[in-house]
Protein backbone atom coordinates (compact mmCIF):
# COMPACT_ATOMS: atom_id res chain seq x y z
CA UNK A 1 0.00 0.00 0.00
CA UNK A 2 2.73 2.44 0.96
CA UNK A 3 4.49 1.62 -2.21
CA UNK A 4 1.43 2.56 -4.21
CA UNK A 5 1.17 5.85 -2.40
CA UNK A 6 4.76 6.68 -3.00
CA UNK A 7 4.53 5.67 -6.61
CA UNK A 8 1.41 7.74 -7.16
CA UNK A 9 3.02 10.81 -5.68
CA UNK A 10 6.16 10.37 -7.68
CA UNK A 11 4.21 9.89 -10.84
CA UNK A 12 2.07 12.94 -10.23
CA UNK A 13 4.96 15.21 -9.37
CA UNK A 14 6.99 13.82 -12.21
CA UNK A 15 4.22 14.47 -14.67
CA UNK A 16 3.83 18.04 -13.53
CA UNK A 17 7.53 18.59 -13.83
CA UNK A 18 7.46 17.04 -17.23
CA UNK A 19 4.70 19.34 -18.31
CA UNK A 20 7.26 22.05 -17.77
CA UNK A 21 5.31 24.63 -15.87
CA UNK A 22 8.25 26.40 -14.35
CA UNK A 23 11.40 26.06 -16.29
CA UNK A 24 14.65 27.80 -16.61
CA UNK A 25 16.21 28.44 -19.97
CA UNK A 26 19.83 27.91 -20.67
CA UNK A 27 21.89 30.91 -21.66
CA UNK A 28 25.14 31.06 -23.49
CA UNK A 29 27.33 33.41 -25.45
CA UNK A 30 25.85 35.13 -28.50
CA UNK A 31 28.19 33.45 -30.90
CA UNK A 32 26.94 29.95 -30.36
CA UNK A 33 23.24 30.81 -30.10
CA UNK A 34 21.22 28.76 -29.48
CA UNK A 35 22.57 26.55 -26.73
CA UNK A 36 19.24 25.78 -25.09
CA UNK A 37 15.53 25.67 -25.71
CA UNK A 38 13.86 28.64 -27.33
CA UNK A 39 10.45 29.33 -25.85
CA UNK A 40 7.74 30.78 -28.08
CA UNK A 41 4.84 32.28 -26.18
CA UNK A 42 1.36 32.82 -27.59
CA UNK A 43 -0.95 35.52 -26.28
CA UNK A 44 -3.99 33.40 -27.09
CA UNK A 45 -5.52 30.05 -26.18
CA UNK A 46 -4.62 26.90 -28.13
CA UNK A 47 -6.48 26.49 -31.40
CA UNK A 48 -6.60 30.07 -32.68
CA UNK A 49 -4.78 31.32 -35.79
CA UNK A 50 -1.91 32.87 -33.84
CA UNK A 51 -1.44 29.64 -31.91
CA UNK A 52 -1.41 27.51 -35.05
CA UNK A 53 1.03 29.84 -36.82
CA UNK A 54 3.34 29.86 -33.81
CA UNK A 55 3.31 26.07 -33.66
CA UNK A 56 4.03 25.77 -37.38
CA UNK A 57 6.99 28.15 -37.08
CA UNK A 58 8.22 26.55 -33.86
CA UNK A 59 8.39 23.20 -35.57
CA UNK A 60 10.46 24.58 -38.46
CA UNK A 61 12.77 26.68 -36.31
CA UNK A 62 13.37 23.72 -34.05
CA UNK A 63 14.51 21.66 -37.03
CA UNK A 64 16.70 24.46 -38.36
CA UNK A 65 18.47 25.30 -35.13
CA UNK A 66 18.53 21.83 -33.64
CA UNK A 67 17.08 22.82 -30.28
CA UNK A 68 13.59 22.20 -29.04
CA UNK A 69 11.15 25.09 -29.30
CA UNK A 70 8.30 24.66 -26.81
CA UNK A 71 5.17 26.71 -27.37
CA UNK A 72 3.57 28.15 -24.23
CA UNK A 73 0.11 29.71 -24.27
CA UNK A 74 -0.34 32.81 -22.18
CA UNK A 75 -3.78 34.05 -23.13
CA UNK A 76 -5.11 37.30 -21.73
CA UNK A 77 -6.23 40.77 -22.76
CA UNK A 78 -6.08 40.08 -26.51
CA UNK A 79 -2.41 39.23 -26.20
CA UNK A 80 -1.45 42.30 -24.15
CA UNK A 81 -0.61 40.12 -21.16
CA UNK A 82 1.81 38.05 -23.19
CA UNK A 83 3.26 41.20 -24.75
CA UNK A 84 3.97 42.75 -21.36
CA UNK A 85 5.70 39.58 -20.21
CA UNK A 86 7.79 39.36 -23.33
CA UNK A 87 8.71 43.00 -22.93
CA UNK A 88 10.25 42.34 -19.53
CA UNK A 89 11.93 39.07 -20.49
CA UNK A 90 15.68 38.80 -20.86
CA UNK A 91 16.66 39.98 -24.36
CA UNK A 92 18.72 36.94 -25.29
CA UNK A 93 16.59 35.37 -28.01
CA UNK A 94 15.45 32.47 -25.85
CA UNK A 95 11.98 33.89 -25.51
CA UNK A 96 10.22 35.12 -28.62
CA UNK A 97 6.62 35.49 -29.74
CA UNK A 98 4.42 35.90 -32.78
CA UNK A 99 2.32 39.02 -32.28
CA UNK A 100 -0.69 40.52 -34.00
CA UNK A 101 -0.71 43.90 -35.70
CA UNK A 102 -4.20 44.61 -34.36
CA UNK A 103 -2.83 44.66 -30.82
CA UNK A 104 -0.74 47.70 -31.77
CA UNK A 105 -2.91 49.35 -34.41
CA UNK A 106 -6.57 48.73 -33.51
CA UNK A 107 -6.87 47.62 -29.89
CA UNK A 108 -5.41 50.90 -28.53
CA UNK A 109 -8.28 52.68 -30.31
CA UNK A 110 -10.83 50.65 -28.33
CA UNK A 111 -9.46 50.03 -24.86
CA UNK A 112 -8.08 52.01 -21.95
CA UNK A 113 -4.50 53.23 -22.05
CA UNK A 114 -3.13 50.82 -19.45
CA UNK A 115 -4.06 47.86 -21.63
CA UNK A 116 -2.41 49.27 -24.73
CA UNK A 117 1.07 48.11 -25.72
CA UNK A 118 3.62 49.95 -27.85
CA UNK A 119 5.54 48.54 -30.78
CA UNK A 120 8.67 50.44 -29.73
CA UNK A 121 9.00 48.23 -26.68
CA UNK A 122 9.95 45.25 -28.85
CA UNK A 123 12.60 44.22 -31.32
CA UNK A 124 11.15 43.02 -34.60
CA UNK A 125 12.58 39.87 -36.12
CA UNK A 126 10.54 39.70 -39.28
CA UNK A 127 7.11 39.60 -40.89
CA UNK A 128 5.02 36.45 -41.24
CA UNK A 129 1.69 36.65 -42.99
CA UNK A 130 -1.49 38.57 -43.57
CA UNK A 131 -4.93 37.32 -42.62
CA UNK A 132 -7.82 38.96 -44.48
CA UNK A 133 -11.40 39.72 -43.62
CA UNK A 134 -14.44 39.06 -45.76
CA UNK A 135 -17.95 40.49 -45.49
CA UNK A 136 -20.51 37.69 -45.74
CA UNK A 137 -24.27 37.36 -46.12
CA UNK A 138 -26.38 34.20 -45.72
CA UNK A 139 -26.92 32.34 -49.00
CA UNK A 140 -30.67 32.68 -48.54
CA UNK A 141 -30.60 36.47 -48.74
CA UNK A 142 -30.55 38.08 -52.17
CA UNK A 143 -27.72 40.41 -51.24
CA UNK A 144 -24.64 40.16 -53.47
CA UNK A 145 -22.73 43.38 -52.80
CA UNK A 146 -22.44 46.30 -50.42
CA UNK A 147 -24.64 48.30 -52.80
CA UNK A 148 -27.42 45.69 -52.41
CA UNK A 149 -27.31 46.22 -48.67
CA UNK A 150 -27.82 49.93 -49.17
CA UNK A 151 -30.76 49.29 -51.48
CA UNK A 152 -32.53 47.14 -48.90
CA UNK A 153 -33.01 50.34 -46.92
CA UNK A 154 -33.20 48.68 -43.53
CA UNK A 155 -30.99 48.89 -40.49
CA UNK A 156 -28.31 46.23 -41.04
CA UNK A 157 -27.35 44.09 -38.05
CA UNK A 158 -23.76 43.11 -38.63
CA UNK A 159 -21.82 40.52 -36.68
CA UNK A 160 -18.11 40.96 -35.96
CA UNK A 161 -15.48 38.87 -34.21
CA UNK A 162 -15.36 41.25 -31.23
CA UNK A 163 -14.48 44.70 -29.99
CA UNK A 164 -11.15 46.13 -31.08
CA UNK A 165 -10.73 43.62 -33.92
CA UNK A 166 -10.11 44.30 -37.58
CA UNK A 167 -13.53 42.84 -38.34
CA UNK A 168 -15.22 45.52 -36.27
CA UNK A 169 -13.11 48.31 -37.71
CA UNK A 170 -13.61 47.18 -41.30
CA UNK A 171 -17.38 46.81 -41.03
CA UNK A 172 -17.84 50.06 -39.14
CA UNK A 173 -15.83 51.96 -41.77
CA UNK A 174 -17.62 50.32 -44.68
CA UNK A 175 -21.14 51.01 -43.41
CA UNK A 176 -20.28 54.56 -42.41
CA UNK A 177 -18.79 55.33 -45.81
CA UNK A 178 -21.72 53.75 -47.60
CA UNK A 179 -24.08 55.68 -45.31
CA UNK A 180 -25.95 52.47 -44.47
CA UNK A 181 -27.69 52.54 -41.08
CA UNK A 182 -26.19 49.59 -39.21
CA UNK A 183 -25.86 48.09 -35.73
CA UNK A 184 -22.74 46.32 -34.54
CA UNK A 185 -23.40 42.92 -32.89
CA UNK A 186 -20.09 41.65 -31.49
CA UNK A 187 -19.44 37.92 -31.07
CA UNK A 188 -16.60 36.19 -29.31
CA UNK A 189 -14.59 35.14 -32.34
CA UNK A 190 -15.36 33.90 -35.83
CA UNK A 191 -17.15 30.62 -35.07
CA UNK A 192 -20.16 32.01 -33.15
CA UNK A 193 -20.52 34.89 -35.60
CA UNK A 194 -20.55 32.47 -38.51
CA UNK A 195 -23.08 30.22 -36.78
CA UNK A 196 -25.41 33.17 -36.21
CA UNK A 197 -25.00 34.18 -39.84
CA UNK A 198 -25.81 30.69 -41.12
CA UNK A 199 -29.01 30.80 -39.08
CA UNK A 200 -29.81 34.29 -40.44
CA UNK A 201 -29.81 35.67 -36.91
CA UNK A 202 -27.84 38.62 -38.26
CA UNK A 203 -27.87 40.21 -41.73
CA UNK A 204 -24.15 40.12 -42.49
CA UNK A 205 -20.92 39.30 -40.71
CA UNK A 206 -17.24 40.15 -41.13
CA UNK A 207 -14.99 37.16 -40.46
CA UNK A 208 -11.47 36.02 -41.25
CA UNK A 209 -11.27 34.27 -44.62
CA UNK A 210 -9.67 31.16 -43.14
CA UNK A 211 -12.56 30.73 -40.71
CA UNK A 212 -15.25 30.87 -43.38
CA UNK A 213 -13.71 29.51 -46.59
CA UNK A 214 -15.38 26.10 -46.24
CA UNK A 215 -18.82 27.66 -45.88
CA UNK A 216 -18.16 30.04 -48.78
CA UNK A 217 -17.11 27.15 -51.02
CA UNK A 218 -20.17 25.17 -49.96
CA UNK A 219 -22.29 28.20 -50.95
CA UNK A 220 -23.84 28.43 -47.50
CA UNK A 221 -22.75 32.04 -47.28
CA UNK A 222 -22.13 34.66 -49.97
CA UNK A 223 -19.01 36.84 -49.87
CA UNK A 224 -19.86 40.50 -50.53
CA UNK A 225 -16.41 42.05 -50.29
CA UNK A 226 -12.89 41.41 -49.05
CA UNK A 227 -11.20 44.18 -47.09
CA UNK A 228 -7.71 43.68 -48.50
CA UNK A 229 -5.94 46.20 -50.77
CA UNK A 230 -6.12 43.82 -53.71
CA UNK A 231 -8.13 40.69 -54.42
CA UNK A 232 -6.79 37.65 -52.59
CA UNK A 233 -5.86 34.41 -54.27
CA UNK A 234 -8.17 32.32 -52.10
CA UNK A 235 -11.26 34.21 -53.26
CA UNK A 236 -10.23 35.56 -56.65
CA UNK A 237 -13.78 36.31 -57.80
CA UNK A 238 -14.69 38.42 -54.77
CA UNK A 239 -14.19 42.17 -55.31
CA UNK A 240 -12.47 44.28 -52.69
CA UNK A 241 -14.36 46.98 -50.81
CA UNK A 242 -12.09 49.44 -52.55
CA UNK A 243 -13.27 48.22 -55.98
CA UNK A 244 -16.83 48.82 -54.82
CA UNK A 245 -15.95 52.40 -54.04
CA UNK A 246 -15.22 52.34 -50.32
CA UNK A 247 -11.82 53.16 -48.95
CA UNK A 248 -11.63 50.32 -46.41
CA UNK A 249 -8.40 48.35 -46.24
CA UNK A 250 -8.12 46.32 -43.05
CA UNK A 251 -6.11 43.14 -42.49
CA UNK A 252 -4.64 41.22 -39.65
CA UNK A 253 -0.88 41.01 -39.91
CA UNK A 254 1.43 38.84 -37.81
CA UNK A 255 5.14 39.14 -37.17
CA UNK A 256 7.88 37.71 -35.01
CA UNK A 257 9.08 39.75 -32.03
CA UNK A 258 11.75 39.54 -29.34
CA UNK A 259 12.33 41.60 -26.18
CA UNK A 260 13.95 45.00 -26.80
CA UNK A 261 17.73 44.85 -26.91
CA UNK A 262 18.16 41.36 -28.32
CA UNK A 263 21.61 41.14 -29.99
CA UNK A 264 21.57 41.55 -33.78
CA UNK A 265 23.44 38.29 -34.39
CA UNK A 266 20.77 36.36 -32.47
CA UNK A 267 17.97 38.10 -34.37
CA UNK A 268 19.60 37.33 -37.68
CA UNK A 269 19.94 33.71 -36.75
CA UNK A 270 16.29 33.50 -35.75
CA UNK A 271 15.19 35.30 -38.89
CA UNK A 272 17.23 32.92 -41.05
CA UNK A 273 15.67 29.93 -39.34
CA UNK A 274 12.20 31.42 -39.79
CA UNK A 275 12.89 32.17 -43.47
CA UNK A 276 14.02 28.63 -44.09
CA UNK A 277 10.83 27.44 -42.43
CA UNK A 278 8.74 29.74 -44.63
CA UNK A 279 10.40 28.23 -47.69
CA UNK A 280 9.39 24.65 -46.86
CA UNK A 281 6.53 23.03 -48.73
CA UNK A 282 4.85 22.07 -45.47
CA UNK A 283 4.71 25.68 -44.33
CA UNK A 284 3.49 26.93 -47.71
CA UNK A 285 0.70 24.39 -47.54
CA UNK A 286 -0.09 25.53 -44.02
CA UNK A 287 -0.50 29.10 -45.30
CA UNK A 288 -2.79 27.94 -48.09
CA UNK A 289 -4.87 25.76 -45.77
CA UNK A 290 -5.51 28.69 -43.49
CA UNK A 291 -5.86 31.27 -46.28
CA UNK A 292 -2.86 33.26 -45.09
CA UNK A 293 -0.99 35.50 -47.52
CA UNK A 294 2.73 35.41 -46.74
CA UNK A 295 4.33 38.83 -46.25
CA UNK A 296 7.69 37.85 -44.86
CA UNK A 297 9.33 41.27 -44.81
CA UNK A 298 12.32 42.67 -42.97
CA UNK A 299 11.90 44.41 -39.61
CA UNK A 300 11.91 47.81 -41.33
CA UNK A 301 9.20 46.77 -43.74
CA UNK A 302 7.11 45.38 -40.87
CA UNK A 303 7.47 48.63 -38.97
CA UNK A 304 6.44 50.60 -42.05
CA UNK A 305 3.34 48.47 -42.59
CA UNK A 306 2.30 48.81 -38.96
CA UNK A 307 2.89 52.56 -38.86
CA UNK A 308 0.84 53.03 -42.01
CA UNK A 309 -2.03 50.97 -40.62
CA UNK A 310 -2.01 52.76 -37.27
CA UNK A 311 -2.00 56.23 -38.80
CA UNK A 312 -4.61 55.40 -41.38
CA UNK A 313 -7.03 53.76 -38.96
CA UNK A 314 -6.82 56.60 -36.52
CA UNK A 315 -7.36 59.20 -39.23
CA UNK A 316 -10.35 57.32 -40.66
CA UNK A 317 -11.98 56.84 -37.27
CA UNK A 318 -11.64 60.57 -36.63
CA UNK A 319 -12.87 61.45 -40.11
CA UNK A 320 -16.01 59.33 -39.86
CA UNK A 321 -16.45 59.92 -36.14
CA UNK A 322 -16.56 56.27 -35.25
CA UNK A 323 -15.69 55.01 -31.80
CA UNK A 324 -14.86 51.34 -31.47
CA UNK A 325 -15.41 51.18 -27.76
CA UNK A 326 -15.56 53.47 -24.81
CA UNK A 327 -12.20 54.24 -23.39
Amino acid sequence: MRLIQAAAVTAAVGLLTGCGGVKTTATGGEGDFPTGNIQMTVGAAPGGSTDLITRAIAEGVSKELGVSVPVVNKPGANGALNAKELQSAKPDGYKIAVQNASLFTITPLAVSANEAVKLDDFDLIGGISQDDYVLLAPAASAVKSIADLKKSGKNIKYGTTGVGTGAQLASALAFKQAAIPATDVPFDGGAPALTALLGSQIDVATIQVGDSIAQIKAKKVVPLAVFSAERIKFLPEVPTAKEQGYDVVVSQYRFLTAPKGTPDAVKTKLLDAAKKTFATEAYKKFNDDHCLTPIEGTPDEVRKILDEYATKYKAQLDQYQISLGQK
Partner: protein
Amino acid sequence: MTERPLAQLGAAGVAGAIGVFGLVGSLALGLGRLTAPGPGLWPFTVSVVITVLAVVLALTGRHGTDTEGFTRASVQTAVAVLSLVVFAALLPLIGFEIPSLLLVFVWMRFLARSAGCHRWPSALARWLRSTCCS
Protein backbone atom coordinates in the same frame (compact mmCIF):
# COMPACT_ATOMS: atom_id res chain seq x y z
CA MET B 1 -26.32 22.70 14.71
CA THR B 2 -27.16 25.84 16.52
CA GLU B 3 -28.63 29.16 15.59
CA ARG B 4 -26.11 31.92 15.18
CA PRO B 5 -28.08 35.05 14.42
CA LEU B 6 -24.94 37.17 14.39
CA ALA B 7 -23.25 34.96 11.83
CA GLN B 8 -26.37 35.05 9.67
CA LEU B 9 -26.49 38.83 9.93
CA GLY B 10 -22.81 38.95 9.09
CA ALA B 11 -23.36 36.78 6.02
CA ALA B 12 -26.20 39.04 4.93
CA GLY B 13 -23.99 42.05 5.57
CA VAL B 14 -21.18 40.73 3.40
CA ALA B 15 -23.62 39.79 0.63
CA GLY B 16 -25.14 43.26 0.88
CA ALA B 17 -21.71 44.84 0.68
CA ILE B 18 -20.94 42.88 -2.47
CA GLY B 19 -24.26 44.00 -3.92
CA VAL B 20 -23.64 47.65 -3.11
CA PHE B 21 -20.11 47.42 -4.45
CA GLY B 22 -21.54 46.01 -7.67
CA LEU B 23 -24.15 48.78 -7.83
CA VAL B 24 -21.59 51.54 -7.41
CA GLY B 25 -19.16 49.90 -9.82
CA SER B 26 -21.72 49.33 -12.54
CA LEU B 27 -23.17 52.83 -12.23
CA ALA B 28 -19.66 54.14 -12.77
CA LEU B 29 -19.36 51.99 -15.89
CA GLY B 30 -22.53 53.47 -17.35
CA LEU B 31 -25.84 51.73 -17.88
CA GLY B 32 -26.55 52.78 -21.45
CA ARG B 33 -30.01 52.28 -22.90
CA LEU B 34 -31.88 49.18 -23.99
CA THR B 35 -31.10 50.01 -27.63
CA ALA B 36 -27.43 50.31 -26.76
CA PRO B 37 -26.87 48.50 -23.46
CA GLY B 38 -23.85 49.91 -21.63
CA PRO B 39 -21.20 47.84 -19.89
CA GLY B 40 -22.81 48.46 -16.51
CA LEU B 41 -26.40 47.46 -17.29
CA TRP B 42 -26.08 43.74 -16.65
CA PRO B 43 -23.87 43.92 -13.55
CA PHE B 44 -26.28 46.57 -12.25
CA THR B 45 -29.25 44.22 -12.65
CA VAL B 46 -27.38 41.39 -10.94
CA SER B 47 -26.24 43.68 -8.11
CA VAL B 48 -29.81 44.81 -7.48
CA VAL B 49 -30.86 41.18 -7.06
CA ILE B 50 -27.96 40.46 -4.69
CA THR B 51 -28.67 43.53 -2.59
CA VAL B 52 -32.40 42.83 -2.32
CA LEU B 53 -31.78 39.21 -1.35
CA ALA B 54 -29.19 40.25 1.22
CA VAL B 55 -31.88 42.36 2.86
CA VAL B 56 -34.29 39.42 2.69
CA LEU B 57 -31.67 37.20 4.30
CA ALA B 58 -31.07 39.71 7.08
CA LEU B 59 -34.80 39.88 7.81
CA THR B 60 -35.77 36.22 7.50
CA GLY B 61 -32.66 34.10 7.82
CA ARG B 62 -31.60 34.89 11.36
CA HIS B 63 -32.85 31.60 12.69
CA GLY B 64 -31.10 29.44 10.15
CA THR B 65 -28.91 26.68 11.55
CA ASP B 66 -26.60 26.27 8.61
CA THR B 67 -23.62 28.21 9.94
CA GLU B 68 -20.59 26.97 11.82
CA GLY B 69 -18.71 28.93 14.43
CA PHE B 70 -14.99 29.56 14.41
CA THR B 71 -13.00 27.58 16.92
CA ARG B 72 -9.40 27.49 18.02
CA ALA B 73 -8.85 24.98 15.28
CA SER B 74 -9.66 27.71 12.77
CA VAL B 75 -6.20 29.08 13.46
CA GLN B 76 -4.90 26.05 11.60
CA THR B 77 -6.80 27.07 8.53
CA ALA B 78 -5.27 30.51 8.75
CA VAL B 79 -1.79 29.00 8.99
CA ALA B 80 -2.57 26.78 6.03
CA VAL B 81 -3.69 29.74 3.92
CA LEU B 82 -0.59 31.67 4.91
CA SER B 83 1.62 28.78 3.81
CA LEU B 84 -0.12 28.75 0.43
CA VAL B 85 0.46 32.48 -0.02
CA VAL B 86 4.14 32.05 0.80
CA PHE B 87 4.27 29.20 -1.70
CA ALA B 88 2.77 31.33 -4.46
CA ALA B 89 5.07 34.23 -3.63
CA LEU B 90 8.21 32.10 -3.74
CA LEU B 91 7.29 30.20 -6.90
CA PRO B 92 8.31 32.83 -9.47
CA LEU B 93 11.49 33.64 -7.54
CA ILE B 94 13.12 30.26 -6.92
CA GLY B 95 11.21 27.76 -9.04
CA PHE B 96 8.71 25.26 -7.79
CA GLU B 97 10.88 22.55 -6.23
CA ILE B 98 11.84 24.10 -2.89
CA PRO B 99 8.50 25.81 -2.19
CA SER B 100 6.73 22.52 -2.93
CA LEU B 101 8.82 20.65 -0.39
CA LEU B 102 8.34 23.42 2.15
CA LEU B 103 4.58 23.38 1.62
CA VAL B 104 4.31 19.64 2.08
CA PHE B 105 6.58 19.81 5.12
CA VAL B 106 4.56 22.55 6.81
CA TRP B 107 1.28 20.80 6.17
CA MET B 108 2.47 17.45 7.42
CA ARG B 109 4.38 18.82 10.40
CA PHE B 110 2.03 21.44 11.75
CA LEU B 111 -1.37 20.83 10.32
CA ALA B 112 -1.76 17.11 10.39
CA ARG B 113 -0.46 16.24 13.83
CA SER B 114 -3.80 16.48 15.46
CA ALA B 115 -5.28 14.11 12.96
CA GLY B 116 -3.49 11.26 14.61
CA CYS B 117 -0.60 11.20 12.23
CA HIS B 118 2.36 10.96 14.53
CA ARG B 119 4.50 9.25 12.05
CA TRP B 120 4.98 12.24 9.81
CA PRO B 121 8.78 12.01 9.73
CA SER B 122 8.72 8.59 8.22
CA ALA B 123 5.94 9.60 5.85
CA LEU B 124 7.88 12.62 4.71
CA ALA B 125 11.10 10.69 4.39
CA ARG B 126 9.37 8.13 2.27
CA TRP B 127 7.90 10.81 0.10
CA LEU B 128 11.25 12.56 -0.28
CA ARG B 129 13.00 9.37 -1.13
CA SER B 130 10.50 8.41 -3.75
CA THR B 131 10.57 11.87 -5.28
CA CYS B 132 14.30 12.37 -5.36
CA CYS B 133 15.39 8.93 -6.31
CA SER B 134 13.21 8.63 -9.34
